């Protein structure tokens, strides 16, 4: 729920596009091929074959693959896919070697699935008397830009657990209790997380299901969340998606090609001093399930809705401006407007990369739509990213009357898997 959290504009993205000799701006308009290129650029600096096709193929049908290997994990700066399945796991094993083996097994499975292949020996053709290695519901589907991004929760670094207590990064904090939080412990936290993003929900769900299955006995699913209708984009040239309140959200998100902004606000630098050098090239993730009081919001007058956000509903333009991407004039907004409070200028420059998705889990027992925003924020340091922004929002945001944070988790996102011999978390366990 924090709009305008980026100081950099679309101009930077254009410049980056020109610099790499990439496609024309028109060709970057969100079709599959361009998405692949942006994802590749972000994931490993290797720009895959670019085509300047302008064929209007929906992303899920073009279904290209995002490279799995790279300096950073895919699924952060990668052009945001349409669907999400996010899962948090408790680690059940007490054996460090077993945990390491699991991460290796997960990595090998992820390599295959992100390439559009089934895990292990596949879904068919094996021994008829035994269940197949892969459950098969993604057979025949394209890779659909599937990315799998793994994270390590604070619990993994607990004393007397896996001998990692000296390696917990200072930036991986336990989040404070923010005013208004109503967190369900059963749907919060976790020792490990996997974020699966894809243009096809079946592909994302399949991926989490295979990893959960490989993990049984070593890990147990603690909670998970499905998401649709990305609420922010890391490709600023795409139309900004609307959230469940009907507003364009995340207009000024960091561009996946803006390497300067990514280095400054998202990726952990190489020179860590607190035993967390293993995090170089990684990032930190805050996940929050934000329930919206949809029915109450829908009864709110249009003017009030626009005042609450600080943008107009039709165009998404900031107060007093006419275009969505016009520089917001914060002082023109009400002091407690959401955009004003979330803006970097209000938060000493605090900037995060958002990857949120809308969710609707049917209705609650009272017949109210159980819907809202599954907020995913990546940043170089949680203390300098999410925390100051959320402190500000939790204290004053007028939107709080219509939303409630009901689930919360924080994870260290290790750097990318470099090659076929590398695995998620190798540097941590080295």
């Amino acid at each position, binding site marked *: 729920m924090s709009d305008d959290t980026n100081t950099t504009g679309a101009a930077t993205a254009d410049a980056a596009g020109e610099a790499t000799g990439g496609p024309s701006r028109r060709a970057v308009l969100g079709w599959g091929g361009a998405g692949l290129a942006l994802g590749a650029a972000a994931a490993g600096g290797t720009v895959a074959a670019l085509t300047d096709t302008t064929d209007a193929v929906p992303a899920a049908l073009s279904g290209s693959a995002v490279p799995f290997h790279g300096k950073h994990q895919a699924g952060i700066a990668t052009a945001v896919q349409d669907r999400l399945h996010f899962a948090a796991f408790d680690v*059940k094993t007490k054996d460090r070697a077993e945990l390491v083996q699991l991460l290796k097994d997960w990595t090998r499975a992820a390599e295959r699935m992100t390439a559009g292949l089934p895990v292990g020996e596949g879904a*068919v053709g094996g021994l008829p*008397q*035994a*269940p197949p290695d892969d459950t098969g519901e993604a057979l025949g589907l394209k890779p659909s830009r599937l990315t799998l991004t793994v994270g390590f929760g604070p619990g993994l670094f607990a004393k007397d657990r896996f001998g990692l207590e000296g390696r917990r990064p200072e930036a991986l904090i336990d989040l404070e209790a923010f005013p208004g939080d109503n967190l369900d412990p059963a749907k919060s936290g976790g020792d490990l997380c996997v974020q699966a993003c894809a243009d096809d929900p079946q592909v994302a769900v399949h991926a989490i299901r295979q990893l959960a299955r490989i993990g*049984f*006995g070593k890990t*147990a699913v603690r909670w998970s969340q499905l998401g649709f209708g990305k609420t922010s984009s890391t490709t600023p040239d795409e139309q900004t998606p609307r959230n469940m309140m009907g507003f364009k959200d995340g207009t000024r998100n960091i561009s996946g090609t803006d390497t300067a902004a990514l280095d400054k606000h998202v990726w952990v630098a190489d020179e860590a001093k607190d035993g967390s050098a293993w995090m170089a090239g990684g990032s930190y993730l805050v996940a929050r399930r934000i329930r919206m009081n949809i029915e109450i919001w829908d009864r709110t007058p249009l003017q009030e809705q626009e005042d609450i956000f600080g943008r107009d509903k039709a165009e998404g333009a900031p107060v007093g401006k006419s275009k969505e991407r016009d520089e917001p004039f914060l002082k023109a907004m009400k002091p407690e407007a959401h955009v004003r409070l979330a803006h970097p200028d209000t938060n000493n420059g605090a900037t995060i990369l958002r990857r949120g998705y809308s969710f609707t889990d049917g209705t609650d027992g009272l017949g109210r739509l159980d819907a809202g925003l599954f907020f995913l924020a990546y940043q170089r340091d949680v203390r300098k990213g999410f925390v100051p922004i959320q402190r500000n929002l939790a204290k004053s945001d007028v939107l709080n009357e219509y939303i409630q944070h009901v689930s919360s988790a924080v994870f260290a996102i290790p750097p990318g898997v470099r090659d076929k011999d590398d695995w998620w978390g190798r540097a941590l366990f080295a």
Partner: protein
Amino acid sequence: MRPARLTVLTAVAAVAALTAVTGCAEKSGAGDGAVKIAASDSACEVSKTEFPAGKVTLEVENKGSKVTEVYVLFPDDRIVAERENIGPGTKASITAEIKAGDYEIACKPGMKGDGIRQKVKATGNGAVEKRSPELDAAVAEYRKYVQEQADQTLPKAQAFADAVKAGDVEAAKKAYAASRIGWERTEPVAESFGDIDPKVDVREDGLEAGQDPAKDWTGWHRLEKALWVDNKIGDDEKKLADTLITDLTDWQKKVGQAEITPTSMANGAKELLDEVASGKVTGEEERYSHTDLVDFKANVEGAQKAYELLKPVAAKNDPALSAELDKQFAAMNTLLDKYRADKNGYEFTSYETVGPDQRKELSDAVSALGEPLSKLAAAVAK
């Protein structure tokens, strides 16, 4: 008991059928050697009534207007193989390992009743699946175990029935869970006699459309409801106690003849964990008495027995799997022990008092054991 579940035998048959469909196994004999069955609403025509024993493929075509199912039965109605849900105008194939002897093929248009029967004969000593002496011994031991469980169940069930008939609610409640242990340990085999399970172990919501709970609901759970919900025993319940004993005696007589193979043993062990996952961990099975943990323990014991007997072979073929299974069975048993004071007794905590976090912990343990257990059949079949 879950309605319409796959029995051990049908699971094997379904797997075999899938093999034939996908064409991934060795030549299935689906060509000229196949027995063709033309099923209609009023007929069940079999292309040949005599065929060589061994691996037999039945090619079924439903020419009728109703969904049908086709069974291969022993003369005493035990199921050799079956295929359900064959839609009008569709074809299906059933592959089964059939020894020399007399059989009946039954088509059941509308999937109801005894079906339209045809007598058939398997002749010669066709190549029945080769087995190792070790696996033969495992099967023989398991058959013995299953019989013992039935033999031990009868007196306990009798004690329960006697208490019901005496109108002694408290004594009946005490005897209830114990009377089910042997059944729960061997449930997949017990279920392979399709008619006994619905008589003794069906839950109220397992009744089929048109069945009346007052008339058609029999067995343990009907009595469970009378004891814990109504807290009284009427004449109907006293009669049902006798019926339960009659049905269990039938089971005791038949159980020794169940078709058991090494892979059906392995998959039966996995099915016992499935039972735990679907019915016990949710508290559905014993919703009135809350004695779910007794069933839970019995299911795990039955699975462990089958595993231990197969272990010499499994450990050779897949040492990592058997190490994992040893570990997960031990973890499961340790966890269950938290819910009973006497490690040799079957007095478990009422499931009503087991909180959501504890249920999650139990469910995680079931997944941790069930997943590797699903690979046991492959390790045995290698």
